[in-house]
């Protein structure tokens, strides 16, 4: 509170009241640091390896408080933080009312943030009962073998060496020359019966959401 908080009127003319008020406010000067103060973002310092915090240079919206530099942005309950836009408002508070420990707390209720970042030491879980692992573009994943029942037919395109299907071993019904192990496979026709099982194999995820990035 400051002198301007005193409403104009007879109270300002009461010297004893003014003196008493100053005395009380002097003893309770720390109370002012227990209030939330409105500031505007002037500059954003994004986190780095040396400084993991988001630091803001902020401008006071009142004449009672100074502009601040390197005001740490406090993270949310789930470890996330946002990079606010320059010009947006933030609320600055003081830990335990201590003028040496200020931090930015709440962001602008209207302005969008530039980046919203969620960090977690071990796991980020989306959904109330999420338990399936999410894959990212570029990750190596299990693709799987397809096992069939009811038999199938393989029609090789040719019996000429170098144009045959490749097999890890010579299957029944084909000569060793037809398998042409080690050479590039040629095209042919694979006819399968019913799919009965899929077992582990390897492949690559080649697509992902354009609106979600997970590091």
């Amino acid at each position, binding site marked *: 509170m400051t002198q301007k908080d005193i409403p104009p009127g007879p109270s300002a003319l009461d010297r004893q009241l003014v003196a008493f008020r*100053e005395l009380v406010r002097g003893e309770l000067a720390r109370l002012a640091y227990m209030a939330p103060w409105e500031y505007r973002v002037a500059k954003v310092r994004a986190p780095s390896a040396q400084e993991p915090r988001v630091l803001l240079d902020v401008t006071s919206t009142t004449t009672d*408080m100074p502009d601040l530099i390197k005001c740490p942005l406090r993270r949310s309950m789930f470890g996330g933080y946002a990079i606010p836009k320059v010009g947006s408002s933030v609320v600055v508070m003081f830990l335990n009312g201590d003028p040496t420990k200020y931090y930015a707390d709440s962001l602008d209720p209207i302005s969008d943030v530039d980046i919203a970042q969620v960090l977690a030491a071990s796991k980020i879980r989306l959904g109330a009962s999420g338990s399936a692992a999410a894959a990212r573009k570029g990750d190596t994943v299990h693709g799987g073998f397809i096992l069939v029942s009811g038999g199938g037919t393989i029609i090789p395109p040719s019996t000429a060496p170098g144009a045959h299907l490749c097999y890890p071993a010579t299957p029944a019904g084909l000569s060793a020359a037809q398998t042409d192990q080690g050479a590039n496979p040629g095209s042919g026709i694979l006819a399968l019966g019913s799919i009965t099982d899929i077992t582990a194999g390897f492949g690559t995820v080649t697509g992902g959401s354009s609106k979600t990035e997970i590091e």
Partner: protein
Amino acid sequence: MSAYAALNGTLRIISGTISIPYYGIWVAEVVLALTAEIPAMVTLGVGNLSLKGAVYRSASYAGARSALIVGGAGGWNDDVGPASYQNDSGILLSLILGDVAKAVGETVQVATDTSVGTAFVRRRGPAVNVMRQLAGDTWWMREDGTTIVGPHPTTTITSPFTLESFSGAKGSYSIASESPGDWMPGAIFQAPTMGDPRTVSYVQHTLENDGTVRTEVLATS
């Protein structure tokens, strides 16, 4: 010729009181044998007591002038604007208090300088509030008007004095001394009739019209 009790050595004090607290700033209310304006900055002298202060309020009436005098430059009650400090290496207490003192014309001396942290926010308000926030109950005003942050010097009163009375209820002592300057907060005194030594917590000198000085002392315990 200078008077026993005077401002600036020549402006004779007819009567008054001088209150010197353990922490904070001393104040004096004096009546002078003149009606003319007095300087804004004065040295209040009573015997060997010499205090530098500033006139806070003054007016003349019925052939005399009375004045309220506060220790130092009288600036601690002035407002200072907001300011912020940020230094990853730490910010010294003396820097913050030195800045605020300079802004209001005062001087400050920090006995043991320390870092208050890597940041500090000074809001608009009376300069003394910054002192209260950072120095707490450790600051007082030396006779020369310098604000000291730290303990009082430990001295023992060796000049002669008479213990005229002692109020056990108030914990106050009435002293008669020719050396009022020796009676400062933090000083240790002892008399044959009072038992253990005591430390001065608060002093009030009362200057009577008849030229006598009565000293009331509160002990720290």
